[in-house]
């Protein structure tokens, strides 16, 4: 069976304390059968949100996900349950094994939920634990296993129905370098015809193993880039909340307003920025989406600097991590 993953214009927005948060905003990518796909990006860039959508655990606000012939975002009820059981195998960041069950018990659970007879489920669990190198420790509880071993159990659990799509959320996050090597080798081996592996990570070394790398946060160049002047008409928006940007803006003339877009469609004014001050430094420094929008209240001129250029040109201005 050949599978093909298509993510098209995927958007997830939610209300967080009255503010609109968009961890994913118009994301598109494809993956071919047999590929190991790495979702790369820092914390908060939407990797886990994307995996949740792919796993059928989160319904996106907009866009579509096609896995083979299945429109994942349209699945509901029993069809969605069946998709979660049979089509997707998930390896969670914190292993998420059931503490009361043995390694084998943890692998058996999804099979029993899927109606596999007890003896068949136990036999299959034994095979999978052998596959991940834990045949000898199948009767140990998670607390008796190392982080790497727990992650192997989690991978074995994800493989029980031989799903064509395996999602691994930061599978190396809690492991030492020896365990990391083993887990990555296992995931690499699992990426074979009939199966797509999607791995999220903030560690770009993992991307060396990938057939395809999806960067969820744009990689801004550290190279010097000349400042760029931007002229804004009254009411014109400089940047929007949730966008990513690499420039810090210094106000030369005019008047800017910093505001947050609220979930109910309203806006909350945070500050007004007058000439001589700057705005929009937090996103570029931390590589995070803009946490507020900025617009001109009157005809204004601003100059955009990269972080490095801003520090060079305005050494007397201390960047505070309090404004957007």
């Amino acid at each position: 069976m050949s599978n093909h993953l298509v993510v098209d214009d995927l958007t997830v927005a939610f209300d967080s304390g009255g503010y609109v948060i968009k961890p994913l905003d118009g994301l598109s990518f494809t993956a071919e059968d047999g590929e190991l796909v790495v979702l790369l990006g820092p914390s908060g860039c939407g990797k886990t949100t994307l995996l949740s959508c792919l796993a059928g655990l989160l319904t996106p606000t907009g866009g579509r996900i096609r896995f083979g012939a299945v429109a994942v975002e349209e699945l509901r009820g029993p069809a969605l349950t069946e998709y979660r059981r049979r089509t997707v195998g998930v390896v969670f960041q914190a292993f998420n094994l059931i503490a009361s069950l043995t390694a084998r018990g943890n692998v058996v659970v999804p099979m029993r939920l899927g109606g596999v007879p007890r003896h068949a489920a136990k036999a299959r669990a034994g095979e999978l634990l052998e596959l991940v190198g834990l045949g000898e420790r199948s009767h140990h509880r998670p607390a008796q296993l190392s982080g790497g071993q727990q992650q192997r159990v989690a991978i074995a659990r994800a493989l029980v129905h031989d799903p064509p799509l395996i999602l691994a959320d930061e599978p190396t996050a809690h492991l030492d370098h020896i365990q990391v090597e083993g887990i990555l080798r296992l995931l690499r081996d699992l990426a074979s015809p009939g199966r797509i592996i999607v791995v999220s990570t903030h560690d770009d070394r993992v991307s060396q193993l990938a057939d395809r790398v999806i960067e969820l946060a744009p990689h801004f160049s550290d190279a010097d880039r000349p400042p760029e002047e931007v002229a804004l008409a009254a009411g014109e928006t400089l940047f929007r909340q949730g966008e990513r940007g690499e420039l810090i803006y210094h106000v030369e003339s005019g008047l800017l307003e910093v505001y947050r877009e609220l979930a109910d469609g309203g806006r909350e004014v945070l500050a007004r920025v007058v000439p001589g001050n700057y705005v929009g430094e937090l996103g570029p420094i931390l590589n995070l989406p803009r946490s507020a929008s900025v617009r001109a209240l009157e005809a204004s001129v601003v100059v955009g600097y990269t972080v490095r250029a801003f520090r060079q040109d305005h050494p007397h201005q201390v960047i505070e991590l309090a404004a957007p």
Partner: protein
Amino acid sequence: MLAVTFADLWFRARQFLIAVIGVGLVLALALALSGLVDGFHAEAAESIDAVGATSWVMASAAEGRVTAFAAFPQADLSAVAREPGVRRATAILFAPAQVVLVSGTATPQTVNLVGVQRGGLGDPQVASGHGLSGGAEAVVDSKLAAPPGSILHLGGHGYPVVGTVDDRTMTGGVPLVYMPLAAVQRAVTGGKPLITAVATTGTPTSVPAGLVVLPPSAVVSDTVGQLRTAVASIDNTRWLMWLVAAAIVASMLYVAALERKRDFAVLKALGSSSRTLFLSLVLEAVVVTLLAAVLAEFLASALTPLFAQPIDITPDTRLVLPLVAVTVGIVASITALRRVTGADPATAFG
């Protein structure tokens, strides 16, 4: 999910054991209270049935209570005895709540005094000593702790105890003291020939004005009826016991559900439904309450001697207990329902 359920029970064995003991103790107390209520009925039935009458003729003012002191002339006995269908008729004078002092003791005790005719219905069959011979003597229930040979002081007179009977109490464990009718009339009515009941075999078709004919079962239920306030209080307490049991299980389950929040999210992500997870919790609760019910059966037997009143835990009550336990378990599970249904499978990633 059965494997997950029992693995979790085993994993939290200590937590569940504490709940089993707590709930077991509460259920045992509830069982004992049920036995107490049944005991009121059982003691009255045993004492009234022991008379051997098929009908009771009593003053209508007594409302069917053998323990009510509603007296009528002993002369009415003849009228009843003459009734066609009556094979045997015996006068009884029941004087409730009389205070006696047993020789060699310092504490007065309350007894129910029963005046009977020698050889008639109600004349007790003794378990030790000998029966009433007609003089000023007494046969007492063994609970009074007055062995044959001791003296019973009542109203300034001493009555030698000549025999004892077992399980003859009424009105919540108050022992019966049988004496010749004339002796009781002397002690209670000043010697006036008054009685409170005529016990018969065979049923009279008519009785003198002011008297009624009742079957023994009606006399038993009417007699127990005088305790209805006490029974209602005990019943309310028993309900509270069920509630306490449910509260213990509910709090244990709630804590377990909080601890398993991540597990629920993971199991949902693996394809489990909220319904399956909830049923798993219900099963845990029912297992705990059923184990507690088994423990309660043993504990209740151990607790029985601690009660002064007769405790009669009937087989029916013992059979009902597991059903109550299952109900308690199901009701208690509801507290954790929201934790299960509210578990978001997407949080398994977080």
